[in-house]
């Protein structure tokens, strides 16, 4: 079934329209990614607080958590998480500027700048994570 026909089934799947990018400009794509990364990060926040709970139970419990999650397998997820975080932050700064009514006329160069900064910061952060986990 085509994705669009799926929408007609009722309100419950309407939220998929936030991620419909066909025929849309980079601005809409930026919005869709901002929403997606926001939800991912909110979920990560909950996980992070649970993770920090291990501190309450002492060194052994905390270190067993570290041993499980600071590994090459989790590195992939960590790098994706950092991408989500950096994108959401940098794009968020762009949105703060525009939602206060500033810099609307330069919104296109600012959008491209957002993507470039995101890429650069992400690569630097990911490389550092990689070095730490791989012990390089």
């Amino acid at each position, binding site marked *: 079934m085509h994705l669009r026909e799926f929408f007609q089934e009722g309100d419950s799947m*309407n939220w998929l329209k936030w991620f419909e990018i066909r025929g849309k400009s980079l601005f809409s794509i930026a919005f869709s990614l901002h929403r997606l990364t*926001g939800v991912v990060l909110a979920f990560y926040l909950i996980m992070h607080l649970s993770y920090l*709970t291990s*501190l309450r139970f002492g*060194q052994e419990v905390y270190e067993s958590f570290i041993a499980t999650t600071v590994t090459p397998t989790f590195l992939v997820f960590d790098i994706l998480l*950092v991408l989500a975080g950096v994108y959401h932050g940098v794009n968020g700064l762009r949105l703060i500027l525009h939602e206060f009514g500033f810099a609307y006329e330069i919104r296109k160069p600012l959008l491209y700048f957002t993507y470039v900064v995101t890429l650069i910061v992400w690569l630097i952060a990911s490389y550092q994570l990689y070095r730490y986990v791989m012990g390089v």
Partner: protein
Amino acid sequence: MADRFIPALQIRHGGVKMEKTEKALHTKRVLEPAGWILQLLTGLLLAILVTFHFYEIHFASHNAMEFDKVVERLSDTGYKVMYALLLLSVSFHAFNGLRAIAFDTEFGLRNSRTINAITALIILGAFFYGLSLLVMF
């Protein structure tokens, strides 16, 4: 084929939902802009604090995630304040963000009071839970 329903009330009254009391209207009109302003302010704050937090854990030293180092940081008053601020900002920003997403839907429109209440509880809950971890050190 499901109908895309436009409630008759909205058409007859020009799309403006009729409110019952002035007080309810005032609260509603004040909560939303306050929520938006705080969302942007916490966003700005987080851009700084999360960057600092990430820098500290992954760039400043090689052993920042070791148990002893974590406890050392959490025992320091300055760090405690920073973490508390980070925690409050991120709790508000994340869960208010989810609230905004919920309000973008018909479900959110129908259950606005419940969602507002639950969001407030979760924000406070997350903040006080994190605080309870902070005060242990």
